Structure formats: C-alpha cells, structure tokens
C-alpha cells in the first residue's frame, strides 16, 4: 500500500509558506502565518512536494488545485496527474483571473491515488489586491500618504525658514542712502553696512557701540546713519576697532557696487 505525503508551500518574493501537511498514515500539520498578496491577473506560484512512503513503488497521483474566495466561490479549478516514486517537487504556477475581486482567498490542493486510505490535502490563504502603478493598493496608499506627509513637512519647514530669513533680511538688509550726495554716499553705506553686519553678530549691542563713536549719528531703532560729522575713514576705523574689541575677532566687510 502506498502512502503519499503532500507538502505545499508558496513562494512569493521572499516569503516562504508551509501549509498544513496531511499524510496518509498520520496526520501531521504545520503551518506558519501567511502574508502573501497577489494582484488579479498575476501568477500565484505554488511549490508542491510529494513524498511517497510506499517503498519506492511508482504511484500515479491526481493533484487538484482549487482557488476559492472567502465566500466559497471557486475562481480556479485545475487538476493534473503526476507520477511519484519517492519524492517529486515542482512549482505550479496558477494564474489568478483578472476579474477576481479583492479579498482573502484559499488555495486548496488535494491528491488522489490508488489505494488511498485517507485523504491528503492542504490549503493556505492569500490575499488578492489590485495594483496602482505597479504597487499594491495598500502599499501605494501608504507610500503616497507618506510622500504627502513628507511634502507637507518640507513645505512647513521651508515656510518657517523662509519667514525667518525674511525677518532677518528686513532687519539686516542694506539701507538705501540714495538721498545722500553721491560723493559722501559710499561712506554712509560702508558705515551702515558695517553696523548691520555687526548687529547680525552681536545684536543691538552693535548700535550701542556705533552710538558711542564721536562724529557718528545713527537712528537707535533702525541703525540708519543720520550724519557723519568727522572724517569718515576715521569713524569707520574706530567703528571696526570698537567691534573687534567687543567681538574679540577681526572684522570683514563688504563694499557695495558703485551706482552706474
């Protein structure tokens, strides 16, 4: 008398599924949790392993495959005959119909052979889910949601940084001295930009230092240079010296491009 042990497993991506195992002589069942998803129209690869414990005698086995929905609706029904001497392993590719609706399905496999004492069958569950742009719907929504959340975060951070930069720009942007005579304007601009540059580094203390310089009159709120009543280069040199003492480091400065 032959006894056939049937093992069916499913490989998809890197998932390995071992389904229930039923032998003719003793019922042994092992199963692991399944998280396998296929899209309608895709192939469900089923790995079949048949073991004949009947002493090496060749047995013709009729294998039936049934894919059924949760409600019991059979969407695939196939059968084939396979000869087994000791073992026979193969992959059966079952195409899931394109028209299949989404949901949980069961793949049932059973074997029938001469002299069979007890039924040998196995089954496992899998999910059918549609794809969007080649990605399973749920994953797509997950990624899409993630991208939207990321986009929103980037937008918020950009807005915050931009408003902060705008605040700084309005506070430290160069003051216009076009009302000053062109031959004196360069001095006003240089003094003003030096004050602004320092204000950026040491805050409003820069205004205190500038106010203390003889011959330099500034607006204490805006830092605008109101009047230079001493040699400008002397004022600038004193201003730079004052800032260097305050900051403890030497001062770099920029010259505005001359107006054409």
């Amino acid at each position, binding site marked *: 008398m032959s006894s056939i042990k049937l093992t069916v497993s499913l490989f998809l991506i890197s998932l390995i599924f071992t389904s229930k195992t039923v032998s003719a002589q003793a019922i042994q069942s092992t199963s692991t949790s399944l998280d396998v998803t296929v899209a309608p129209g895709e192939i469900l690869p089923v790995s079949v392993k048949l073991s004949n414990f009947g002493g090496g005698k060749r047995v013709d086995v009729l294998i039936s495959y049934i894919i059924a929905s949760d409600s019991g609706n059979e969407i695939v029904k196939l059968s084939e005959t396979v000869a087994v001497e000791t073992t026979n392993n193969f992959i059966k590719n079952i195409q899931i119909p394109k028209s299949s609706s989404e949901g949980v399905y069961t793949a049932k496999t059973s074997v029938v052979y001469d002299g069979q004492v007890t039924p040998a069958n196995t089954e496992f569950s899998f999910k059918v889910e549609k794809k969007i742009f080649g990605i399973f719907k749920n994953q797509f929504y997950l990624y899409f949601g993630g991208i939207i959340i990321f986009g929103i975060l980037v937008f918020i951070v950009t807005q915050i940084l931009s408003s902060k930069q705008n605040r700084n720009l309005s506070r430290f942007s160069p003051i216009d001295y076009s009302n000053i005579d062109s031959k004196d304007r*360069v*001095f006003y601009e*240089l003094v003003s930009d030096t004050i602004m540059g320092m204000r950026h580094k040491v805050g409003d203390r820069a205004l205190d230092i500038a106010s203390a310089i003889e011959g330099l009159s500034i607006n204490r709120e805006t830092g605008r240079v109101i009047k230079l009543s001493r*040699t*400008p*280069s*002397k004022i*600038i*040199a*004193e201003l*730079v*010296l004052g800032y*260097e003492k305050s900051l403890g*480091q*030497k*001062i*770099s*400065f*920029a*010259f505005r*491009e*001359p107006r054409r």
Partner: protein
Amino acid sequence: MNKTILVIEDEKASRDLLVRVFQKENFTVLQAENGKTGMKTALDMHPDLILLDLLMPIMGGIEALKEIRKTKWGKTIPVIILTNLSATDEKLVESMISERPAYYLIKSDWKIFDVVKKIKEVLRIN
C-alpha cells in the same frame, strides 16, 4: 565661460591652497608672490578677478591695487582683499574707500569655500 583669477599672496602655503581649490572649481588661476609681480601679471593678463593680500614684501597689496586702478582696465576689475590685517587704521580705511575692493575679508574669519562663494558672487557665477 572659464574665468581667470589672479591670486596675489606672499605665503606659499596659503597661495598653493587657494590655487588648488580654485582650479578644482574650474577657474584658470594665475599667481604672484608679491604686489609688484601681481600688478604686472594683472596688467599683462587681465584676469577676471584679483584676490589680494595686503601685507607683502617688495610691494604691498594697497600699492599694487592703486597702480592697477590707475589703468583703464584696472578701474573696474573686481578685487577681493583677503588679509590678516585689521581695518582699524584710518589710512588703510581711506585707501579701501578710494580703491573700492568688492570685499575686505579677514583670513581667519573665512573658510576657503566661503571665499569661493564670494568670488562666484562677484563674478556672477551660479
């Protein structure tokens, strides 16, 4: 378009570093070790920008810049001062105002890649 920078710097180590970084940034780089050769190179080669140290032997940066500014070409050539000399001297400030460099940068205050940024800004390179 490939822009040319003239580096006038007496300290060899600093000059070599600047030259190497600017070359990596695809600038054509000319170099001089003092104000006199720097001025001559500038007037002969007409670079697009001069990076100028102030304290140098033979001829200082200010004198070289004054000579360069006397020429028609030199009047508008952008110059960036890169020095350790603090602008706390009235005469130096006066010279700066009259010779109009684009920037007066203190070496210790500036990382070399920030200097590259300033150069690109002055040369209007993205």
